[in-house]
């Protein structure tokens, strides 16, 4: 046919033009290398890794070469001319390329019999571009971006009635993460609505408009923001108020990456809106019902069969091999019974036997049913893994948190500079407050502890045995054999005979009692289990505390102060760091030892751990602020808990990839379904199902798999968590400091994986469903 040769290329012109344009680009790059900041900007863009990362790296390489080769001072004045010639060459090159392509009119043919007849009306009116739709999509993405920026800035900086308040505390102000979440939701809603309305109005997907809208209306703002983030000066000058937005993204280390993630999210929402709008108006008017679509989908993929659900659940709960063995056994038994029955039947009536045999053989499943089971299993595994891993990580976090706040208080009140001797009044004030359930004074210092040849640096804490139990778990953590009471009554400590032989002389400062036993009475001390182990001491043994401070002056300057104590008890908190580093003595003893009038601070226990920050703030206000200050446990251990959160986030992302892989399985399954059902799609179209209805059918089929998999994953994940919680999995004490795998089931954490699974399967089914709707009725009907 001559009609397929209508374009003629003149290759010489084309290549010359391409070379010229490339040379123009090179010149532009050289000119750019003379400009400052270009390099930094490229650096940022090349690392952003979305789309143009490779390209930007290439350009950067050229610029770097240009920069090193061109001597900047001599080059500088001619920059303008270089830019101009670069542009000229660029335009000239493209003009050459343009002229090198010619369209030839096809050779004359005899006119077809339809020559001059009116064109098929629908083809004549055919138009695949609509400015209104472009405006809806592009305007939607732009509006959502602007809404996100404006709303977030407003919420974070406390703008009220359109102006920034000088006194921020009385404006409605929310912390950045909450503000970000709110504005992101609003922006998502706007993007979704724009996509929905655009598609509903156009009654088609309008892919060209969507692409153009997202590229031309959506890209400028993230591009601008990325460029700004690469240039701190400009950022400070133009968009200093935007810092609240990149603040959050900046926590991830790469602010501009945050922009692009948000942009991708918005694009995704537009896409979801478009498909939903298209599906909803597929029958010509808004129609969100899905009666017959669901009816058909449920026959195509009968996911909610007890047999399928039970077998997937069995595999999720017990692994692949045991259910497989059971299945094989059941099948074998069934076959034996059935064949015996058929044979018996056949002896009486051969025809009935063949019928029974036929039914027995046609029970085999189709490949699509197999794929469906696999997909459900895949989604289930992903969701289950997410739930279990996140719960175990939460368990670790909760365990750690409990140990940390069990040993240290939840809120600590301390005082700047001055001696904190009025602590009793402070305690009285704090006790009155709502949300406070316990308070105790303490002294904290660092000393050396020694026993015989063993020595260790420890943190010593002076405590009030009467009230310490209200704030920390110390009394509960004392191992049998020792007692917290021994601190107040040192004479009750029974000395171990062996340790005394090393020190026949009573040390200075030892308290003598009337009973005059062979062993002197020392003040009691409570040490951690690990420390006791490394010092080789037990309850009743003597240890010495040495402090460089507060000793008398000797001939060569201050002499370290040393004092003997007797181990009154050993505690085990479960935190290695604490068990190896902490020792406790009586508050009064500590005051005497460190020559202190007051205390280091007051520890407070609050009713609700998660409310500690608010209570801490309230305490500061109650005490009129300076010189007092409060810190809560979250603040004191911020690094640790941030690390844990980050770890959980990363783990969640990695495991979500499993769900996405399962989503790929769903794409394959639904595509197989579409191929298998081509004929039926054609028939359904002939019966009057609109394109939107077909999309609905196959979306529902994918969603069924997702929902079934998600629910099975939820069920098995929760069961596993409960199993671990109730029965427990022993951890190797040589490796882990905790005896059992901790689990904490959080409702949000179990629901989110299911939602992710459903979303992923929905997204995964969109493409095959659209493909299904594009099946031409004639094509499907012709196949036979």
């Amino acid at each position, binding site marked *: 046919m001559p009609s397929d040769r209508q374009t003629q290329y003149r290759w010489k012109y084309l290549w010359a033009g391409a070379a010229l344009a490339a040379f123009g680009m090179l010149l532009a790059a050289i000119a750019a290398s003379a400009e400052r900041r270009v390099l930094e900007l490229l650096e940022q863009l090349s690392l952003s890794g979305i789309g143009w990362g490779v390209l930007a790296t290439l350009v950067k390489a050229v610029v770097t070469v240009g920069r090193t080769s061109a001597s900047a001072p001599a080059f500088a004045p001619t920059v303008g001319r270089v830019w101009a010639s670069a542009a000229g060459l660029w335009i000239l090159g493209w003009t050459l390329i343009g002229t090198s392509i010619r369209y030839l009119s096809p050779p004359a043919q005899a006119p077809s019999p339809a020559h001059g*007849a009116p064109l098929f009306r*629908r083809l004549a009116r055919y138009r695949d571009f609509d400015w209104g739709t472009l405006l809806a999509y592009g305007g939607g993405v732009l509006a959502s971006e602007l809404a996100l920026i404006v709303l977030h800035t407003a919420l974070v900086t406390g703008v009220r009635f359109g102006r920034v308040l000088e006194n921020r505390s009385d404006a409605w102000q929310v912390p950045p993460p909450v503000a970000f979440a709110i504005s992101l939701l609003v922006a998502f809603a706007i993007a979704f609505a724009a996509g929905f309305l655009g598609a509903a109005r156009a009654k088609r997907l309008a892919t060209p408009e969507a692409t153009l809208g997202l590229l031309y209306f959506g890209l400028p703002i993230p591009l601008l923001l990325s460029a700004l983030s690469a240039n701190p000066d400009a950022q400070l000058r133009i968009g200093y108020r935007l810092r609240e937005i990149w603040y959050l993204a900046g926590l991830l280390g790469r602010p501009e990456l945050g922009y692009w993630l948000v942009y991708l999210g918005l694009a995704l929402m537009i896409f979801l809106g478009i498909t939903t709008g298209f599906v909803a108006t597929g029958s010509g008017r808004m129609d969100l019902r899905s009666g017959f679509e669901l*009816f058909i989908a449920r026959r195509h993929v009968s996911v909610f069969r007890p047999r399928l659900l039970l077998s997937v659940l069995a595999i999720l709960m017990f692994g692949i091999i045991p259910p497989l063995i059971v299945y094989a056994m059941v099948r074998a038994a069934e076959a034996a019974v059935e064949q015996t029955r058929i044979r018996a039947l056949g002896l009486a009536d051969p025809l009935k036997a063949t019928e029974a045999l036929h039914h027995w053989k046609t029970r085999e499943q189709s490949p699509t049913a197999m794929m469906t089971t696999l997909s459900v299993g895949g989604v289930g595994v992903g969701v289950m893994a997410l739930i279990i891993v996140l719960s175990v990580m939460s368990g670790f976090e909760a365990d750690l948190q409990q140990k940390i706040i069990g040993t240290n208080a939840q809120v600590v009140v301390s005082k700047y500079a001055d001696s904190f001797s009025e602590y009793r009044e402070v305690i009285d004030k704090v006790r009155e407050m709502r949300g406070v359930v316990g308070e105790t004074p303490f002294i904290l210092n660092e000393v050396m502890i020694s026993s015989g040849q063993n020595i260790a640096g420890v943190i010593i804490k002076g405590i009030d045995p009467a009230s310490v139990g209200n704030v920390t778990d110390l009394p509960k953590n004392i191992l049998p054999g020792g007692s917290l009471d021994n601190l107040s009554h040192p004479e009750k400590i029974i000395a171990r005979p062996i340790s005394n032989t090393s020190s026949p002389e009573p040390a200075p400062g030892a308290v003598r009692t009337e009973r005059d036993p062979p062993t002197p009475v020392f003040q009691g001390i409570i040490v951690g289990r690990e420390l006791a182990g490394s010092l080789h001491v037990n309850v009743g043994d003597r240890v010495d505390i040495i402090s460089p401070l507060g000793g008398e002056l000797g001939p060569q300057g201050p002499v370290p102060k040393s004092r003997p104590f007797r181990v009154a008890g050993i505690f085990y908190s479960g935190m290695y760091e604490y068990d190896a580093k902490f020792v406790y003595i009586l508050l009064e003893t500590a005051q005497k030892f460190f020559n202190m009038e007051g205390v280091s601070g007051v520890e407070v226990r609050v009713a609700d751990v998660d409310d500690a920050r608010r209570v801490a703030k309230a305490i500061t206000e109650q005490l009129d602020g300076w010189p007092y200050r409060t810190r809560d446990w979250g603040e004191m251990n911020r690094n640790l808990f941030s690390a844990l959160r980050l770890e959980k986030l990363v783990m969640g992302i990695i495991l979500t990839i499993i769900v996405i892989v399962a989503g790929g399985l769903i794409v394959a399954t639904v595509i197989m379904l579409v191929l298998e059902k081509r004929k039926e799609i054609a028939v359904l179209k002939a019966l009057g199902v609109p*394109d939107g*209805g077909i999309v609905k059918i196959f979306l529902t089929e994918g969603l069924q798999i997702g929902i079934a998999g998600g629910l099975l994953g939820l069920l098995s994940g929760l069961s596993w968590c409960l199993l671990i919680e109730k029965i427990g999995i022993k951890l190797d004490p040589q490796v882990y400091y905790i005896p059992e795998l901790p689990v904490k089931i959080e409702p949000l954490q179990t629901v989110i994986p299911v939602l992710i699974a459903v979303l992923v399967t929905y997204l995964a089914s969109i493409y095959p469903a659209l493909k299904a709707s594009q099946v031409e009725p*004639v094509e499907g009907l012709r196949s*036979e």
Partner: protein
Amino acid sequence: MIGLEIRNLFKSYFLHGKRIDVLRGVSLDLAAGELVSLVGASGSGKSTFLHVIGLLDAPAAGEIRFNGRDLFEMSDPAVADFRNRTIGFVFQSHYLLPEFTALENVAMPALIQRWERGPAVRRARELLLRVGLEKRIDHRPGELSGGEAQRVALARALVLKPALLLADEPTGNLDPVTGEGIHQLLREVNRELGITAIVVTHNEALAESMPRRLRLLDGQVFPS
């Protein structure tokens, strides 16, 4: 009264890269309620003609009006709705949905039109009774004989009382006796409901029994 007006219809399809002009300016007028048979050689474009009338296939040029309405002016959803309400199709092969029972298959067009399940099933049951299949209501297509399946397909085509029935060799896969039964049924339905019907067939004898007979030859329709 003119029911179906077809003007200057052109349609080509491509076979091994060659354009084959099957319809070359077909024009045809059908009165409302008319029963017409269409015969022609294999590959003469009978099925294509029927598909174009039924809006399952797009022509290159031409015009079709049904009861004064220009069919090619409609939007996609309107076309789907038109196929659902106004046209009933019967194909050479029954094309029943294999996962559904005879009753559900017949009820499907009504369900697509968002009828409630109850009325749709009741109407489908009436139709199955009319074609004499009350005993086969809960059987799936795989369990029906060829003639039975074709009768179910006819019932499905008639369930929404369409104004236009397009039958594409409905008896092509059936033995003469069963085929005659289907034709008998078509004639009865045409008489009772006043449906305009075009029946494509290979069987000259059956074609002769229709009130009006057409022949497709060289892309044109002639009376035969």
